């Protein structure tokens, strides 16, 4: 299958600290890749490099064979790389519906229309409600995002990402900080998207057991370096991964 996202020798240094150290991966189309690694391994930093929040010190990012290393986050979203954030990142004083509606509006390419009332685009709202239904949040559509519980904000975050309908979904710990009862619902959503089979998904997750059966491949980051990259079975058997995860003294 054709390669969709590729990184080449990707590195970023903050002061003297190299957070991501020459990571080269390639993700084929419609692939489900998980990134695991202990805290501070550089997983989110790596994501920020993929989505454009940070610019690498060295190396390149390719999307569909084009160099997108210097694209802004806005441009990357339009190209087809959408992301969700680990730290909840929504519009707090807008309603839940409006949060998603903005994403739908962006997806539809209505960006500078200033003469018509937004209600003219009623189908945006209907579409937004569909997305909210998918993440089981449609009953909360009229409350302000700031009044949601943490788990609900995470769901909203995912709905906003889905509404962008990007080719690539970068999910940064979608279940972080959720109560245990809420996790299955989110997993269900992710499974459903995967089963639709038209998206490429890259996921950061701590809960290894939960992603193993979902993932096509797993990559392990440790101290910014790519430790291993392979099928879930290979990763489970890999000894360096085990020591990195269990012992934490790999060096």
């Amino acid at each position: 299958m054709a390669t969709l996202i590729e990184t080449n020798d990707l590195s970023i240094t903050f002061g003297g600290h190299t957070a991501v150290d020459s990571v080269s991966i390639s993700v084929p189309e419609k692939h489900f890749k998980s990134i695991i690694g202990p805290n501070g391994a550089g997983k989110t930093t790596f994501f920020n490099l993929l989505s454009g929040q940070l610019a690498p010190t060295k190396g390149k990012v390719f999307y569909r064979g084009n160099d997108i290393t210097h694209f802004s986050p806005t441009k990357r979203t339009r190209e087809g790389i959408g992301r969700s954030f680990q730290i909840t990142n929504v519009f707090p004083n807008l309603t839940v519906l409006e949060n998603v509606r903005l994403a739908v509006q962006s997806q539809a390419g209505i960006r500078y229309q200033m003469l018509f009332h937004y209600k003219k685009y009623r189908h945006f709202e209907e579409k937004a409600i569909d997305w909210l239904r998918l993440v089981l949040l449609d009953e909360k559509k009229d409350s302000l995002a700031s009044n949601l519980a943490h788990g609900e904000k995470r769901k909203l975050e995912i709905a906003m990402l889905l509404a962008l309908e990007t080719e690539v979904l970068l999910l940064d710990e979608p279940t972080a900080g959720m109560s245990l009862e809420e996790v299955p619902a989110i997993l269900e959503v992710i499974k459903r998207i995967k089963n639709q089979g038209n998206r490429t998904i890259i996921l950061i997750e701590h809960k290894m057991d939960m992603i193993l059966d979902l993932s096509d491949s797993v990559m392990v980051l440790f101290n910014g370096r790519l430790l291993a990259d392979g099928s879930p079975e290979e990763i489970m058997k890999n000894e360096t991964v085990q020591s990195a995860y269990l012992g934490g003294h790999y060096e």
Partner: protein
Amino acid sequence: MNKFADKRPAIIFLLFILLLFLLPFVYESRNLLILLTQIFIFSIFAMSYDLLIGFTGIVSFGHAMYFGLGSYSIGIFMKRFEPDMTYFLWAVLTTIALTAIVSFIVGLLTLRLKSHFYAMLTMSLAGLFLVLAEKWRTLTFGNDGFTFRVPELFIDRTNFYLLCLIGMAAVFFGLRRFVNSPLGRVLQAIRENEQRTASLGFQVLHYKIAASVVSGVLAGIAGILYAISLRYVNTSVFSMDITLDALLMTIIGGVGTLAGPIIGAGIIEFAHDWLTGLAKEHWIFERWIIFFGIIYILVVMFFPQGIVGTLRKIAWKRKKKSYPVKSEQKAAG
């Protein structure tokens, strides 16, 4: 019913406009007319300011520069050329062009400068215009300013009152449509979370410039009307006081609403008039600005959302209280 609730503020506003429209024909008080005219003008100015601070979240301390550009444009056109409608229109076009260019450039600067840095920059830019108006004596007659004649149509106070009223209504409805358009909705998203707006695929800078230009041009129009109402212009139109007036009106009335700045302008102008009137009773009222300071502190402490914002919150809470009752009934039925 939902649709009606949506339109209700607009209907109330229209009735209010209609009443004000009839006022000069039934009640003849020159002073009240002039005061109301002043309120309309500052309403336009404060609404344009609220578009920046309340809807887009851009804090500007230099809004007076657009106001002053408008005032000087009309003044110079009326003084240099004939005070007739043709030159009035020319002055309006010049104002729109000048304010659009300046606000475009100032909007561009939001790219690099955030929050208080931007506020300081706009403040110093307004200061630059103030100095320019002081020093370019051949054109502006320096600090003392100059008087000018206005087109015949505006000499009559009632006519001018109606013009300003219509102007305010037009700006209100125009901005209402603007902030509720898809573009306006993105502005509010930027206020809430700029980074997130960018990762949804919106070019944040383009939106900030759009808001800046619309706001700047409207402030320029307010400046024109202000100068016509005084038939006089001097460097005070570029001063910090003008920006502070807009800030005060917006905060007291309610940031992020359009009715707020109008109510704020009404309160400030009436209070100003009333307090200076009291100066005969006691000397402290000559320093009316002290009272504004106190009011301002109290508002920020107890009603940070202003009058309209607080009212809205109360209404919202009440609606929310009645909501669960309804769903319970449904469950029972």
